[in-house]
């Protein structure tokens, strides 16, 4: 079952009145399965935010289809099951946190009794207890991000869309956010988030779509993309005379007292380890180096 499907989405902007169109999105295809955490990866200016705005009906696509739970996204009512956290948290600064959540709840037609229950729970969840009655204009950026997260979840959405949620957070904040995202997944929700930071993707995403220059250049499960190929093994050892190592025709890099050898396959690695043991050397580490998202990304955009 697909939670979100984008078929052949195209969007261009007119930069001026001279009818010169700039294509920002060129045939975007995205498939998000229900219950997945989908990472939407791409450098700044690749078209991530524009794709998200098309999903939310803030921008109108030139062509293509956006289906949410197999229903077209053009009807505003479909957003009843969506939660959205914008890239920059722009909220009404004259409202208090509680009022803001109530206002958001009203936009989802949530009755006020239920709204106050839910907002209490969410305020606790995002760690803003005791700050409910402070006006948003007195909030710090991190706090705004948290309240933004809370309002995105106010309607208990099936699909949560997060635009660059990790940017501008400190390491603790990122850790907390990752935990929340994983908790969402565990409660059966679909999460679609965009980011230009690879590390976050690798840590939580089930599926990744890479967008570059308005094209999806790669889409697939993270495990498929990354894990099946160990590229090489790095063996680090010490306590062997340099001349002996050189005599064995081993390509190495010398750092301090230790040698780093990059082996292209398992046999070479075994030979090296054998050699070290024979010569009573000390093996410091053996690391299989897998293909990272960064490598994939750099390879694909070439």
């Amino acid at each position, binding site marked *: 079952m697909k939670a979100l499907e984008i078929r052949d989405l195209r969007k261009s902007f007119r930069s001026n009145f001279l009818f010169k169109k700039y294509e920002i999105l060129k045939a975007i295809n995205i498939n998000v399965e229900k219950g997945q955490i989908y990472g939407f990866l791409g450098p700044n200016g690749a078209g991530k935010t524009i794709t998200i705005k098309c999903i939310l009906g803030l921008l109108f696509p030139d062509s293509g289809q956006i289906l949410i739970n197999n229903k077209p996204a053009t009807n505003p009512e479909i957003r009843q099951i969506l939660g959205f956290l914008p890239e920059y948290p722009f909220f*009404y600064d004259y409202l208090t946190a509680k009022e803001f959540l109530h206002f958001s709840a009203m936009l989802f037609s949530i009755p006020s009794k239920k709204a106050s229950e839910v907002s209490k729970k969410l305020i606790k969840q995002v760690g803003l207890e005791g700050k409910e009655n402070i006006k948003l204009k007195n909030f710090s950026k991190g706090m705004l991000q948290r309240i933004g997260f809370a309002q995105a979840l106010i309607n208990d959405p099936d699909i949560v869309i997060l635009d660059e949620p990790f940017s501008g957070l400190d390491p603790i904040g990122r850790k907390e956010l990752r935990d929340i995202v994983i908790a969402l997944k565990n409660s059966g929700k679909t999460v679609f988030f965009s980011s230009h930071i690879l590390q976050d993707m690798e840590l939580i995403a089930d599926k990744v779509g890479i967008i570059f220059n308005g094209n999806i250049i790669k889409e697939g499960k993270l495990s498929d993309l990354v894990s099946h190929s160990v590229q090489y093994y790095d063996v680090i050892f010490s306590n062997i005379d340099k001349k002996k190592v050189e005599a064995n025709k081993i390509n190495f890099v010398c750092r301090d007292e230790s040698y780093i050898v990059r082996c292209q396959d398992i046999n070479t690695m075994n030979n090296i380890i054998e050699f070290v043991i024979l010569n009573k050397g000390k093996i410091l580490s053996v690391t299989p180096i897998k293909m990272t998202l960064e490598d994939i990304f750099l390879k694909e955009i070439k």
Partner: protein
Amino acid sequence: MKLRAIAINTFKEAVRNKIYYLLIAFGIVFAFSSRLVSLLTLGDQVRVLKNVGLASINFFSVLIAIFTGINLIYKEIDKKTILNIMSKPISRRDFILGKFLGLSYTLLVALVSMATVFLLFLLISTGDIDWNILVYFCLLYFELLIIISISLVFSSFSTPILSSIFTINLYLIGHVLWTFNEFKTRLVEPITRIIIYLIYYILPNLEKFNLRDQIVSNEKINPMIVLTSILYALVYIAAMLTLAILIFNKREFK
């Protein structure tokens, strides 16, 4: 419910802005100053009292209408809070209507507070209340509603500075539109004549809502004129809101 959410939020935003109270306070202070001015005149002090009072309330309520009307939508788009609202399950029509309702409520509160203070003041200083003044305030309120519906149209597609200029201009034109009546008959060339007629009948004729002169000089008010004016206001507001929704439906939020 969604409509109400927008309306309440709009009202909250307006009343949490200090300028709102400042303008109401100014309106009241200037209405009080009518007492001072009336002391300077010879005879007919009640007339001066009413005249200065009504004029100042008119002036400040129009200011509130123009500034809150444009400022609220401008802020919504400029501060990108609209991204957050429009990503919720709310149609663009409900957004515009909610904004309009919220603004009209804001203006109602402002006008009622100024009017109440002024009527009490009038009662104390003259011992009598001319109930026709209520008709005046009623028509003034409809004029304010027309102004905010126009400001909604402009802010649905244009930048805030331009929309405030447009709205203020239309307000001013609306009050001198009656001069077109003489002007349009002077043009002989058919094309310019048609254009002028179109302009004349499309632009809002705000002078219709101005009963100050009749009220101040205790003339009898023709109820038919009041009723056509209100009908005109309702039709015009409906037209402006339709136009605003029509334009806003096409608007993209980058």
